[in-house]
């Protein structure tokens, strides 16, 4: 009887509902977790795998030697490479396309590259709204990304180098 009565009282006192309301009321005044994206960003790890870039040596020579490891290792077949012997006898790519629709950003290309030419940067807010072709990013654009962000790439890759 006593137990039943207690349960009845508990039922009508709406205690657990009031506890729930208490939680939302508390959160009403708590600090908000929103990060206002374009102006403010969440922390990005130096290991972050974002948009690809092709790097150059400090003297301006492109690093990529067209060994095609990245092409072979790409699980999504997103990379297409054509190469040619240059006049000075070195082998360089004539075509280096990454289809970003296919790319799954696994980071294998960067992992496999023996000369640190292809890297994945911290850039993630790129979008291709013009056409399907816009998502196939070619050698010139990759180099451009690399040139523009060399400082960032250098810094993050150095930071992470000891773990590799």
């Amino acid at each position, binding site marked *: 009887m006593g137990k039943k009565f207690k349960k009845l009282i508990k039922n009508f006192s709406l205690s657990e*509902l009031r506890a*729930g*309301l208490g*939680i*939302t*009321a508390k*959160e*009403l*005044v*708590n*600090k*908000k*977790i*929103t990060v*206002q994206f374009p102006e403010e960003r969440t922390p990005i790890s130096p290991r972050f795998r974002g948009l690809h870039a092709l790097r150059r040596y400090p003297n301006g020579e492109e690093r990529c030697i067209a060994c095609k490891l990245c092409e072979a290792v790409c699980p999504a077949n997103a990379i297409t490479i054509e190469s040619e012997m240059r006049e000075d006898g070195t082998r360089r790519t004539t075509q280096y396309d990454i289809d970003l629709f296919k790319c799954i950003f696994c980071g294998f290309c960067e992992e496999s590259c023996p000369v640190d030419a292809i890297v994945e940067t911290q850039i993630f807010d790129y979008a291709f709204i013009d056409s399907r072709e816009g998502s196939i990013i070619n050698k010139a654009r990759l180099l451009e990304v690399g040139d523009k962000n060399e400082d960032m790439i250098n810094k993050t890759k150095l930071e992470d180098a000891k773990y590799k």
Partner: protein
Amino acid sequence: MMMALWQAFVVSTHNLLPWFDGVIATVLIILIKAFALIMPLMLVVAYFTYAERKMIGYMQLRIGPNRVGPRGWLQPIADALKLMTKEIIFPSKANIYLFLLAPVLAIAPAIAVWAVIPFAEGIFVVDLDVSLLYVLAIGSIGVYGIILAGWASNSKYPLLGALRSASLLVSYEIVIGFALVTVVMIAGSVNLNTIVEAQRGGILHWYWLPLLPMMIIFFISALVETNRAPFDVVEGESEIVGGTHVEYSGMTFAIFFLAEYANMILMAVLAVLLFFGGWHSPFMGIPYLEFMFSWVPGIVWLLAKSSFFMFLYLWVRATFPRFRYDQIMRLSWKVFLPITIIWIFVVALMTQLKLGVWFG
């Protein structure tokens, strides 16, 4: 201040009277009064949606709309403009006339009800003797708009919504009726003005105290009637996608939205009028505080109290899961109805014994 302005307004309109004759003049005055009431109402609706998004956002650790205008203040306007320029889609299988009648049927009562609501001493459009009954009668017409919308859409999810709406109708209507009976019993009138005046006095003189269970039941039933969470089974977006709103787009949808929010505000105001002493200051009768707050006009008290109820709507929505619709029916038939019947008896006994300050 507001009071003075209103009186000046009334006096000036009365002075203009001789220039018009008879009915036209009266109708014009009513129209002016009506717009003076409806326009602010629409504004309140608009900013209520903003407040809802902000408040629920805050409760969910977000900051809500903040990009349109400073701190997002222009968001409701942007929303309205967006809805205006959206295409109105007429589903090919729908019954077009009924389809378009439904939103009208939803909004017309939501606006017509406001005719009898008093806002402060002497501030009302019309002082009807049976205003409470009028509110009850007109207020329940709005549901037919929703049921009709579900039927006219000729689509399954809206129809399910309409069925659920009908099931809610048969569950909360009686409970609300019984809850109001207790108020009428104490006040001895069905005129809202008189009911509020009967509660004259401080916070302890209001009816929420003797009618506490009734007030809670009234508030919950108000949630059901306005299809608000946790009773939003008619929309139930995770179950029936949007219920009766599924086939409506653009302004046709906006009208349902408007009606729903106008009804929510109405229920909040009604709760204040019936249980929270309307425009009376809560400090009436308390020696020092009464004097300190005597400058606050009645309408401000009313609005402040209503805001509390409106906030409750949002608070509850942010907190609770949704009922299943048969559970709502069970709740009202098996829990609320017995309680109200018992409480009618208790109140009758209390009035006969003249207990407390509320009776007599």
